[in-house]
């Protein structure tokens, strides 16, 4: 830097709030992003998903192999063949409702085959055994299996007897995207899912802000920052740094999730028993809805983060941070429940309250984006949330300046009236240290 530049510094002797916030945000962002802790933070949430997926997959496999749906046939050979053929005829229409059937080898050619004894002795691996004739089949098995399979077996026997249709007319289909009755129900599912994702991300990521200031107090950095820059700029810089880090986290998790989906789309649908491909579209359309998702996540993060920062600023240790943040976490949970509850109460006073209350507003508005295509309300809501976040940051920094940077210890008590009179020794013990 030349002397001319130094003169420029002297001529403009303060950083703007934006510049000040940028200095803090840049350092915090880089420091967090390239820390080992962040790597663990990124990987952490993937483990439960991975373990859950594996467990679901293995469990499903075990469950599928453990549940036997095969029916053993101990009938005359012709009857057995007719039953098997009838089952094959019906299966395309009725799918898994029709059990697979096979002739019990031990019963083949045995006129006196004792089905009850066979089942009682737990031989073979059949859900139930069918004896008798096509006109009067007898199902041998436990009560549960009899209840479950009697109907299908009777249908198969009737088909084998050709007393039910042997051929089925093919129907043509005309699919509609949605019906008036189903549209709202489907969108409510989208609203609920988006609120849940927003809540989980906010709670997971806003925690990073929580210990930030407490750590800086521990490192004694905070006084240097407070001396150089306005405290609200410091708060703002820290919040936006952590928001940036959060987006990195979301991008990484999103990319991994997308890759996983691309690799194992069908498996995910089977394991989760949810067809994400057919998620109902939100009222404002997917692109706009995703944009709102990003905006409302940012606002929810800034609002909650500002609260957490204020708490972190007042706490001396990480343990204190955890204790002090508990009420806020509980409140956030209640706010989420409130927003979730009002999904089914559009236009109610409660929904209006959820939209106006800053901490629940992003959740309520995201649900609204799923249910209602009106856009202007979102502009108003985002503006209101931004104002609330700004006020929270201001209040937090004011609190910090008033309550945190205490010093001096001469201990000249100016309060005229005290609830309890303390001895000078007691008074000195509560004085802040210089």
């Amino acid at each position, binding site marked *: *830097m030349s002397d001319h*530049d*130094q003169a420029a*510094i*002297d001529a*403009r*002797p*303060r*950083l703007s709030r934006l*510049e000040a916030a940028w*200095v803090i945000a840049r*350092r915090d962002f880089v*420091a967090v992003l390239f*820390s080992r802790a962040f790597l663990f933070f990124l990987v952490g949430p993937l483990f439960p998903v991975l373990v859950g997926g594996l467990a679901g997959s293995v469990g499903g496999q075990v469950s599928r192999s453990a549940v036997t749906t095969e029916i053993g046939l101990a009938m005359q050979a012709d009857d057995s063949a007719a039953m098997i053929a009838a089952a094959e005829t019906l299966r395309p229409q009725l799918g898994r409702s029709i059990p697979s059937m096979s002739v019990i080898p031990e019963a083949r050619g045995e006129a006196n085959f004792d089905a009850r004894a066979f089942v009682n002795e737990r031989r073979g691996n059949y859900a139930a055994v069918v004896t008798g004739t096509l006109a009067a089949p007898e199902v041998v098995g436990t009560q549960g299996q009899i209840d479950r399979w009697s109907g299908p077996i009777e249908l198969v026997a009737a088909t084998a007897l050709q007393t039910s249709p042997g051929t089925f007319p093919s129907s043509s289909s005309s699919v509609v995207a949605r019906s008036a009755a189903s549209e709202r129900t489907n969108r409510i599912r989208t609203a609920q899912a988006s609120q849940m994702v927003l809540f989980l991300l906010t709670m997971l990521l806003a925690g990073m802000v929580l210990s930030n200031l407490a750590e800086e107090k521990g*490192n*004694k*950095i*905070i*006084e*240097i*920052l*407070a*001396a*150089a*820059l*306005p405290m609200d700029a410091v708060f703002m810089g820290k919040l936006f740094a952590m928001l940036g880090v959060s987006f990195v986290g979301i991008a990484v998790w999103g990319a991994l999730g997308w890759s996983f989906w691309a690799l194992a789309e069908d498996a995910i649908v089977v394991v989760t028993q949810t067809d994400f491909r057919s998620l109902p579209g939100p009222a404002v359309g997917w692109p706009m809805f995703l944009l709102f998702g990003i905006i409302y996540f940012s606002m929810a993060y800034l609002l909650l983060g500002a609260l957490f920062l204020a708490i972190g600023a007042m706490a001396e240790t990480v343990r204190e941070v955890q204790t002090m943040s508990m009420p806020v976490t509980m409140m956030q949970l209640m706010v989420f429940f409130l927003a979730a509850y009002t999904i089914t109460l559009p236009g109610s006073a409660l929904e209006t309250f959820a939209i106006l209350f800053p901490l629940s507003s992003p959740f309520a508005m995201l649900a609204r984006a799923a249910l209602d295509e009106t856009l202007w309300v979102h502009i108003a809501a985002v503006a209101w949330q931004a104002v609330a976040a700004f006020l929270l940051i201001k209040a937090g920094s004011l609190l910090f*300046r*008033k309550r945190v*940077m*205490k*010093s*001096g*210890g*001469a*201990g*000249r*008590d*100016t*309060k005229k009236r005290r609830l309890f009179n303390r001895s000078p020794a007691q008074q000195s013990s*509560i*004085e*802040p*240290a*210089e």
Partner: protein
Amino acid sequence: MHMQVGEHMSASNVSAPINEDRPLAIEARGLVKSFDGTMAVQGIDISVPEGAIYGVLGPNGAGKTTTLRMLLGIIDPDQGVRRVFGHDRPHDIGRLIGYLPEERGLYPAMKAIEAIAFMGALRGLPLAEGRKRGLELLEKHDLAHAADRTIRQLSKGMAQTVQLLGTLVHRPRLVVLDEPFSGLDAINQGKLETMIRALADEGVTVIFSTHVIHHAERLCEGVAIIAGGKVPYAGSVETARDRIPAQVRLETRARDGAWTAALPEDARREGDFFYFSLPETGVEPLLKQLIEGDAGILSLSIERAGLHDAFVAIAGEAAARQLEADQAGASS
């Protein structure tokens, strides 16, 4: 300028401006601050001319840190006004100020060179320029080898030096140092004194707090003595010392005699010596009476009061004892 001891003990604040010709870097009037009903400072007045080295002197808990924090805008006073280079809000001229807090702090995982650059960036210096200047400063202080070490890899003294360099990297016009000598060994204390003098030579105003009187006495043009949240004296070091009469030490051959009546009222005997304040009339009339009384003068010396004596007289015995205890604690 001679004043009676009784005047020194007066509770009223005394201001003895230093070099009124220069514009003021810092001007504070009637600063009051309390925390939760506990008064930290009550009515502090300080004037520091540009280019001066100024000491804020007082025992631990006197209110030095609170005063500095108010001057820097870290906290706001409940009452009173403060102006730094004529600005009511110190953050408005944040790029002209460097501050070293009493509780040293740096990011442990940051490299030394990055820490210096970051502290410069806080004051508006571009990071690249901060790194360049930081390296120059580290080389100047024989710490170039530590540039790429993280703070947690440095010794306490090295980390403290790095923080001090970070305080200066943006070339501030006002440097505020809170207890800068604490934690430093004698060699580094000497280096710091040299650095402070060099800053003043460049026209930088330096204000530092300390509970070690010798540093203030060696370095400062002016001091503010803080005791019990008040400033019983603020002004030049010379004026403070002049507020105590010079001390006379007299050694005589005769132990007693009529000549003793000529000694001032405050004279006290300690071993072979008499100690008393230099009379306002000077020493010549007394000498004449001692010679005529055949006291047999063996030696007579006149010693000018030091800043410590002035501190005792101004802040009181209790504050002085606490100051000595603080110094002993710091040195141990």
